[in-house]
């Protein structure tokens, strides 16, 4: 069974969220990064964009498809991973580290609490693979 990092929480659409001091970092899980194939371009939001939960402020382009990232946390974009402009493939190779997407200053802590724990996400992914 695939293991997912313990320090993160997860959305059903396969984004992960890391709680930092005053903001939340967003990326995609190995499940998403593995199933979408080679990432060729990432369209990121801009810093200071207001984003609602369920918005799609970020698009990941692969060879064949365009994957909308469903934003998990309502708030304001505080930072983006500009490195992805030149090295979008980092999303494939290091999705929990240098392949992060953007950070949000959240306004509603309950959204983070409602995300899946690593255990819950592991079970959820296993149910998809059956």
């Amino acid at each position, binding site marked *: 069974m695939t293991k997912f990092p313990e320090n993160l929480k997860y959305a059903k659409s396969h984004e992960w969220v890391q709680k930092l001091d005053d903001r939340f970092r967003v990326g995609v899980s190995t499940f998403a990064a*593995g*199933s979408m*194939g*080679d990432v*060729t*371009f990432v*369209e990121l939001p801009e810093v200071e964009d207001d984003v609602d939960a369920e918005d799609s402020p970020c*698009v990941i*382009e*692969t*060879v*064949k*498809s*365009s994957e909308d990232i469903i934003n998990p946390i309502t708030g304001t974009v505080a930072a983006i991973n500009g490195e992805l402009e030149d090295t979008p493939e980092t999303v*494939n190779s290091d999705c929990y580290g240098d392949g992060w997407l953007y950070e949000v200053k959240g306004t509603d802590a309950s959204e983070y609490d409602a995300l899946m724990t690593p255990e819950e996400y592991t079970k959820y992914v296993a149910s998809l693979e059956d």
Partner: protein
Amino acid sequence: MKRTPLFEQHIALGATVGDFGGWEMPLWYSTGQIGEHEITRKACGLFDICHMGEFVVKGKDSLAFWQKLLSNNVEKIVDGQAQYNFMLNPEGGVIDDCILYRYTAEHWMLVVNAGTQDGDFEWMKQNTFGDVTIDNISEKMGKIDIQGPTAPKVIADLVGRETIEKMKFFRFLPEVMIDGKPVILSRTGYTGEIGFEIYCNINDASALWDALLKAGEKHGLAAVGLGGRDTLRMEAGLPLHGHEIRPDLPAVGTPWFFAIDMNTEFTGKKALEDNEGSLFVYSVIVEGRRKPGDHAEVLCEESVIGEMTSSILAVSLEKKPAGFIRVNKKFEIGDVVTLRNSRGKLFKGEIVATPVLKGTSRKKMSVMLDK
């Protein structure tokens, strides 16, 4: 879902698998889709195509049968030659695209797509006449493709240079031994590169795959999934059934005019004449780095004139977004069209010549062997 005999070998090579026409097939291996595409253009790729369908047709009336059933002039090919064809319905729609192999005037093989083979078989049976027998050998036959500039060297190492050095494009050898197993060696393919489609007994497919992987090691060979196959065929200007060509649309205005010979009489010909000028298929290259997506609308002065039939990345053309569009208006090379995706985002696409990339498919075999 169905699996080919090579499924476990794909998993061992780190394959990510997905559904293709009811078959669980490798989409890419640990190399990744872009790497596999590039290896096929530079060295060579190995493809599991066991899922495709094959029919053997025999009988004194088989030539007349093909001439009625298929869109090309089948009298143009000789023993040992293959030909690309459309099988059309009376409305001019494409039931399937296929390759016809002539052993003799009374012995043929037709190779068709995986998802369409049952319907093809029914249609063929309904249309037989006189002395024609059709045998569906799809489940008994395996198929492995080897494609790319170094593919001839891999095969020469296995069968001897003299066996293949005079082979021309779209010719085949009906019985060659590879690793002690009889195969049909066909100089055809779906990538735009020189190479072979190898047909074998389904029970030999697994051993043959390993023999080809091993022989390919010193020639830079890698296994390539259906993802890479799709980007390669798009650049090579080849259609994918269900996208560029479909049963419900007449096969007019396509870049694949070489599949149709209007000087012969065949099912669907009248519909093609009646619908001439109603549809056009073009290759496009899209500005920017985002893809519009399959079924993105094509706009002309704010009205929808068609759709994108394949939206993909042209990996060998600086990874530009590209693909095919089908529209109801004629364009010239260099014209620019507007595309709109399902979220309303607009893109600019330039009409370009098909194919967008010229590979080694037609190069002289001996020249490729000497490189």
